[in-house]
């Protein structure tokens, strides 16, 4: 068999893995690969303007499509620039394969030009990473990288490619199957535990389901719906789980946690059984852990055993793929245990509906100034809930989670675990590439958008008509909110005194910029933006004083929420 160059082996492997798009940025040590991509008809390289942008774009692509995102960057600074994106994907279990160039093996460890120990740097934030030392192992190691990234609990895998490996030659041997002795994720849940869970579900008077991102990753939404409807159990979602259960469903409680709905938090705290599915009890969800759902038994279903009992006590642990576990659980409930669910749940659902009625999610509309929540509501109405929404981090993210009613999975793309400002815009670009026909909107803050604003060039060049709704409050709003509530209104360094003119920025890049300063302009601006097949920045100049409610103060139990603005006239010490 003829020998192939390492770079050729890499490209061949990518094709066999079904890769169509790579997000990347070139540099000296990976030129051999770029050279091959120059006239490759099957794989398209999306050149971003920053490696962080490439990584987030691949991440957005992966989250909406369910396929692994692929990144290709050079060594040293190219590699280190991906770290924030890798850590973001790691925290949210997103399958990525990141290829980094590396200096030739004989220079490794010599502080060579553009050398960085990227395998060492990314060890804590990758599911797995590897330095390929011999071109003979390349195909096998790439195959394993994709396998590890996409199976079990997915995550980023980094493959470091020294220049002499991509230039060296070897026979191409494609391993048809992958077997890694030390890596065997558990997919089937323990049947004894599942049966026990079914019994608890039948016994419970006040149960709540908490559905997390794992329900989306394992495509469990149909089974989740079946479980909830059959047993008449209300469903709260974590931030990552939004869309796994229809928000418009009468059993939906929306999001729980620090900025969760009043009724989700009340339901969880007063429940006698929690069925936690594909979620990891993040501290933003539990609040004070010792005071979390004090009377509830907890059933926890997760593919990753380390998630179980990490933060809260668990009575019935079920390790397995949530989709498979739910299928078995539903079957048992359907065939073996069939109480009159409606009857059993009547009182509990009545209580929940009362909570919903008492304190729904609201804000005060103002005819003079734009309320950020109003912008989200309008985006929801106009897109009929059928857009892919990405977000940045901060108030914009929480308002999007609260006021856009996600009914379908893979429509809400946000950095949940790491909370990465600058994530949403490149992620939107990746999502748009995966689904060119869909409406993709990044809901942004004026602070966050400036963290990867350069990617506007990428959107323009590749003709990706993403929309960015900037909720422009001239502040690092979420931090300002904390300063107002917990730091005596001392707004230390949260006022963004010199924001750029976002309309002009958009125009400078060859995109379109629109602005709304009054509530009456919001709807026309959104409609116009959606009618343009180009990237658009929508600059919504919103009420800078607005805060995200409900809010559970840090360290408090989740039913102790600040629900609304104190009525006293606030003396705001604005820096303006």
């Amino acid at each position, binding site marked *: 068999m003829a020998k192939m160059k390492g770079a050729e082996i890499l490209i061949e492997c990518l094709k066999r893995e079904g890769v169509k798009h790579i997000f990347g940025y070139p540099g000296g040590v990976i030129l051999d690969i770029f050279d091959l991509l120059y006239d490759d008809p099957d794989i398209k390289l999306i050149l971003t303007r920053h490696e962080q942008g490439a990584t987030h774009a691949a991440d957005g692509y992966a989250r909406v499509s369910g396929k692994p995102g692929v990144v290709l960057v050079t060594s040293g600074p190219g590699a280190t620039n991906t770290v924030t994106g890798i850590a973001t994907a790691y925290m949210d279990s997103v399958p990525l394969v990141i290829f980094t160039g590396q200096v030739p093996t004989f220079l490794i460890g010599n502080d060579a030009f553009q050398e960085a120990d990227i*395998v*060492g740097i990314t*060890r*804590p934030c990758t*599911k*797995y990473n*590897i*330095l390929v030392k011999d071109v003979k192992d390349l195909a096998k190691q790439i195959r394993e990288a994709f396998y*590890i990234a996409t199976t079990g609990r997915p995550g980023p895998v980094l493959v470091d490619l020294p220049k002499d490996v991509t230039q060296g030659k070897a026979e191409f041997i494609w391993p048809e199957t992958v077997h*890694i*002795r*030390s*890596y065997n994720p558990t997919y089937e849940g323990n049947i004894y535990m599942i049966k026990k869970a079914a019994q608890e579900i039948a016994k419970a008077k006040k149960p709540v389901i908490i559905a997390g991102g794992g329900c989306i990753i394992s495509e469990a939404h149909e089974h989740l719906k079946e479980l909830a409807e059959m047993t008449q159990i209300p469903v709260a979602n974590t931030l990552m789980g939004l869309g796994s259960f229809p928000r418009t469903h009468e059993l939906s409680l929306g999001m729980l946690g620090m900025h969760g709905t009043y009724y989700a938090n009340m339901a969880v705290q007063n429940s006698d059984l929690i069925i936690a599915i594909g979620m990891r009890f993040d501290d933003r969800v539990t609040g004070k852990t010792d005071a979390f759902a004090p009377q509830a038994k907890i059933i926890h279903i997760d593919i*990753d*055993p*380390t998630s*179980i*009992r*990490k933060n809260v006590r668990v009575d019935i642990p079920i390790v397995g793929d949530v989709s498979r576990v739910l299928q078995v659980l539903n079957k048992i409930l359907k065939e073996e245990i069939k109480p009159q669910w409606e009857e059993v749940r009547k009182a509990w659902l009545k209580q929940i509906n009362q909570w919903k009625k008492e304190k729904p999610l609201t804000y005060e509309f103002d005819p003079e100034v734009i309320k950020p929540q109003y912008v989200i509501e309008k985006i929801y109405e106009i897109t009929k809930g059928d857009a892919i929404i990405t977000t940045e981090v901060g108030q914009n993210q929480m308002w999007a989670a609260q006021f856009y009613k996600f009914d379908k999975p893979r429509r809400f793309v946000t950095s949940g675990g790491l909370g990465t400002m600058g994530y949403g815009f490149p992620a939107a670009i990746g999502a748009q590439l995966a689904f060119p026909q869909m409406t993709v909107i990044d809901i942004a803050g004026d602070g966050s958008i400036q963290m990867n604003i350069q990617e506007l060039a990428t959107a323009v060049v590749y003709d990706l008509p993403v929309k960015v709704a900037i909720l422009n409050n001239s502040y690092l709003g979420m931090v300002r909110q904390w300063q107002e509530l917990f730091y005596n209104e001392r707004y230390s360094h949260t006022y963004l005194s010199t924001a750029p003119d976002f309309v002009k920025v958009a125009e400078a890049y060859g995109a379109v910029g629109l602005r709304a300063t009054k509530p009456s302009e919001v709807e026309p601006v959104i409609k116009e933006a959606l009618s343009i097949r180009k990237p658009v920045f929508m600059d919504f100049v919103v009420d800078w004083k607005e805060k995200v409610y409900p809010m559970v103060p840090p360290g408090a139990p989740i039913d102790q929420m600040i629900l609304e603005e104190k009525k006293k006239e606030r003396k705001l010490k604005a820096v303006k």
Partner: protein
Amino acid sequence: MRHTISVLVENKFGVLARIAGLFSGRGYNIESLSVGETIDPQISIMTIVTTGDDRVIEQITKQLNRLVDVIKVVDLTEIDHVEREMVLIKIAPRKENRLEVLKTVEIFRGRVVDSGPTTYTIEVTGDEKKIQAFIELMKPFGIKEFVRTGKVAIPREISQRK
């Protein structure tokens, strides 16, 4: 509580760093860690001594298991096992004490592995208590330096769950 955990890993570069990083990155404590190849040169075995309450130990074993290069994790504390450690200790006793030192070495079934005009280097193996006791006994004679290997442990042949 103190636990002795035995971890079977792929013998690849970077694995030790990954395991040590898991402990440091999550704020777990390593009291000792020793590594060596097994009969199969592709596999190494690590003996890790760590402390923590049940919840921490459960997390440690689960987190170790989650690492892609980890083949098997056994908490030896749960089963009957043999453990040993070795110390090399260099002392400089005064002339009149030399005999007593040598006697003590004998009692501990240790060996003098090196000696100079004024020093002995002594090797002692045993469980932790024995090593500790030996060090304590040597203190009055003037310890110049010592090194310990850290613990290695293996289940007993007819082992029973405690």
